């Protein structure tokens, strides 16, 4: 609850800090604000479920943990921006403010009690993302991506709203408990099913599940890399937290109706994400498809909807976010270095021979790729493990088998990067990375390894 108020206010403060002569204050200020929000977030830890604003928002340990993941991810990503120092066109104050505002949207999605809050949160987050995607004004790809994202997103929002309207028509309530109570009476109206389907479509679009994924590769590739990282981690985490909240709080009564729909989408997402990723030459595009495939893994847990699901999604989001930040974090300085000699190179070849002169970056990259591929000793392994566990508990073995086959496919494209970094000859010069940037990368790597060895540290928290 506090982070919503804090960041709404501090975002405005950041906006006005932009008028200061020196832009150097912006980065530390934003980081400080995020830290304050993080502290504010955990003030309410272990106090049970608290309802705010007349049944609009709820706070409990699960939502706080999701908030925490979002905040820590945002902290790492902001720390990697280096204040946009080397870019005259950049508007750092606006970027930071928009990021902080978008976090408010994410929190609203994570803790919504009322569908209106879900919609508001989603819009705050999405609109911020449209702007950030197009923030590189001189880059045609960025412009195209922003427009594409905006148009598609607007459609999805429309569908979501229509779904919410139908739900209201059927149940006469916007609140999660109201919908649940309506379903509890038995014999729900057909409007309810239609509404649920439309709401699901709207939400699945935001988390880029197939067949609503078409925007993802272009937008991820076109957006400035730092904002791609933001999109890939925070939007996805918040989106899945919201989906989980919606389905688990309101729709468990008609599980038999929606699980098969979700299972089909899951399979489709896994197939599309993994198989198309194999054919990519651009690392950034590969990460886009990999993010689709990870949406698929998260959907497995949602499809299963067991008591384990909340922990699975939480852990998976954490592992995925940290590893993704690492991957983009290595790409940014690498692509920048290459840009000085010509065009930014984001292909696999750019990583050739990375390990020779940049052992740290290569190691960070390796750990993140291993984690994304779900190899033991990394947090990603346990993420997959818990997700598969919830599906096994529900007894959907065929879904598991598809997921397993696709994990094996995933290894192929993640290892291409590792092989390029360690085993191919390349001319990558030593890349200078700011000490603070290094700290972020190393911390993220340590988190990945720590939770890979002792996942109990994390699962014990919630």
């Amino acid at each position, binding site marked *: 609850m506090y982070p919503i108020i804090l960041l709404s206010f501090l975002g405005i403060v950041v906006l006005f800090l932009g008028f200061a002569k020196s832009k150097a204050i912006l980065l530390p200020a934003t980081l400080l604000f995020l830290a304050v929000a993080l502290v504010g977030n955990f003030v309410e830890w272990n106090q049970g479920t608290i309802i705010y604003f007349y049944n609009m928002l709820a706070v409990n340990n699960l939502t706080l943990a999701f908030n925490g993941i979002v905040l820590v991810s945002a902290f790492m990503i902001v720390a990697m921006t280096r204040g946009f120092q080397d870019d005259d066109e950049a508007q750092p104050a606006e970027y930071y403010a928009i990021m902080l505002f978008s976090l408010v949207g994410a929190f609203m999605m994570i803790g919504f009690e009322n569908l209106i809050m879900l919609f508001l949160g989603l819009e705050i987050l999405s609109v911020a993302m449209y702007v950030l995607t197009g923030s590189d004004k001189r880059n045609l790809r960025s412009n195209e991506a922003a427009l594409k994202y905006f148009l598609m997103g607007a459609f999805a929002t429309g569908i979501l709203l229509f779904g919410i309207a139908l739900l209201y028509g059927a149940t006469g309530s916007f609140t999660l408990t109201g919908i649940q109570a309506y379903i509890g009476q038995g014999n729900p109206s057909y409007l309810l099913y239609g509404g649920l389907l439309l709401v699901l479509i709207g939400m699945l679009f935001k988390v880029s599940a197939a067949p609503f994924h078409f925007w993802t590769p272009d937008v991820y590739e076109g957006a400035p890399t730092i904002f791609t990282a933001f999109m890939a981690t925070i939007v996805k985490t918040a989106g899945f937290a919201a989906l989980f909240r919606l389905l688990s709080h309101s729709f468990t009564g008609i599980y038999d109706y929606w699980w098969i729909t979700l299972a089909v989408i899951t399979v489709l997402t896994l197939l599309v994400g993994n198989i198309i990723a194999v054919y990519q030459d651009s690392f950034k595009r590969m990460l886009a498809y990999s993010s689709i495939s990870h949406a698929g893994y998260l959907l497995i847990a949602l499809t299963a909807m067991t008591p384990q699901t909340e922990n699975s999604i939480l852990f998976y989001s954490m592992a995925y976010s940290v590893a993704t930040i690492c991957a983009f974090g290595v790409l940014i300085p690498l692509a920048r270095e290459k840009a000085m000699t010509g065009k930014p190179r984001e292909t696999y070849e750019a990583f050739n021979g990375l390990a020779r002169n940049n052992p740290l970056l290569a190691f960070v990259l390796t750990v993140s790729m291993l984690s994304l591929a779900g*190899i033991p000793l990394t947090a990603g*392994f346990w993420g997959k493990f818990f997700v598969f566990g919830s599906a096994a508990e529900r007894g959907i073995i065929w879904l598991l*088998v598809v997921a*397993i086959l696709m994990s094996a496919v995933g290894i*192929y494209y993640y290892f291409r990067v590792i*092989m390029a970094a360690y085993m191919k000859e390349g001319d990558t010069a030593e890349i200078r990375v700011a000490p603070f940037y290094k700290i972020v990368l190393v911390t993220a790597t340590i988190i990945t390894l720590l939770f890979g060895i002792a996942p109990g540290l994390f699962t014990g928290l919630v």
Partner: protein
Amino acid sequence: MLTILLILIPLVAGLLTFFLGGSNAKIIALAGALAELATAVFAWTQFDPAAGAQFGFQYDWITASGISFAASVDGISMLLVLLTTFLVPLIVLSAFGHNYQNPATFFALILFMESALVGVFTTTDAFLFYFFFEVALIPVYFLAAVWGGENRLKVTFKFFVYTIFGSLFMLVALVYLYYQTPGTHSSAITAFYDLQLTPAAQGWLFWAFFIAFAIKMPLFPFHTWQPDTYTESPTPATMLLAGIMLKMGVYGLIRILLPITPLALNQWGAVAIVLSVIGIVYGSIIAIQQRDMKRLVAYSSFAHVGLMAAGVFSTTLNGMQGALIQMLAHGINVVGMFFIIDIIFSRTNTRYLDHLGGITQKTPSLSVYFMIMLLGSVALPLTSGFVGEFLLLAGVFEYNNWLGAAAGLTIILGAVYLLRMFQKSMFGATSVNTEHFQELTLSERAVLIPLTIMVFWIGIYPSTFLEMTEPTVNQLLRFIHN
């Protein structure tokens, strides 16, 4: 408590090697491996075969899911821990003659691998087993992919994807079993033993586990990664793969597959044995055609592991005991042979039989060691291979005479390809490559002598090891046949 020491010592030694290594990396690594060996031998002296699992420990790992970090040592584990801890110092020592780049990383990876291997062989928790099973793959992948031969990228990649693919099936099976356990779920391997599963479910589980372990060993038809990987890897990695990692598959059969799916064995056991026997004959025949020595030994290893699997699937006391003692013997023989091939390669720069010859005239001592290792592999009485192969064949004969006869081909064909290799490389006129063949160095002898001693020890007095494993095997068999 000894078990946790066994897992931690190589890990710590590996970290020390990695961070403090520098030019002394190999010394630190050797010291660590020897300390581990000493601990294992100490555990052996304290070990009581009749007492079942001992030296155990258990910590909560993921409390919420009932997954614990638990390990202990019983007869089967003890044997394999001894094999691992005995071979790793020799493997480290065998790398002394080479100047690998980044020695600190190289030796650290070997020690990390040892830690994971000991973990696989001792753990009593199914998920921990899977964890170590996978983790063991990572160091050896990097060893092979970074320090390997020309084609290493493609080959190791295939190897990695293949094995991960297989073990993912095992993961599904384990997760499934975990949710079958009563109450608040447990992932102890023994808890899986007690499950009452339907024959149909056991059938599925059988194949999930079988694919995982068959790829690791490898069995026909999952072996296609193996010859290339063995050939392209640097010799220490090949030794780790063939000498120890292959045993993970057989160990998995004994520890996981048989006791969890005994009913499926009635239904599918015959298929598994037939596949194993096909592997024996197929591997042997291909080995005869090989001109590259490393490849030849790779195929011979493929043939031998087929026999071990057949023995295990026969679920007879002879077959199981034979498989266990053969794991020990094969580990020692194959490491010895790969090392000798490495010695030849380092001096002549070739492994092709056509380019070699006449080495006996230059270094008789090497040919003597080579002969001993070969005879161990060919299963001459009084050498290590004999005991294992005899028991294994006895076990397979008990199961089915025809299969036993087919499996028996391994001895004849083995003699054909191995002695041919010996003759082509050691006898005859010297070639351009072997003219200036140098005498063995001290460190090379230091590797070969312990191996030779073990070949004879196992061949002459196998009871040391057979008695160690017998109570555990008996208990296991009683469980399977009930």
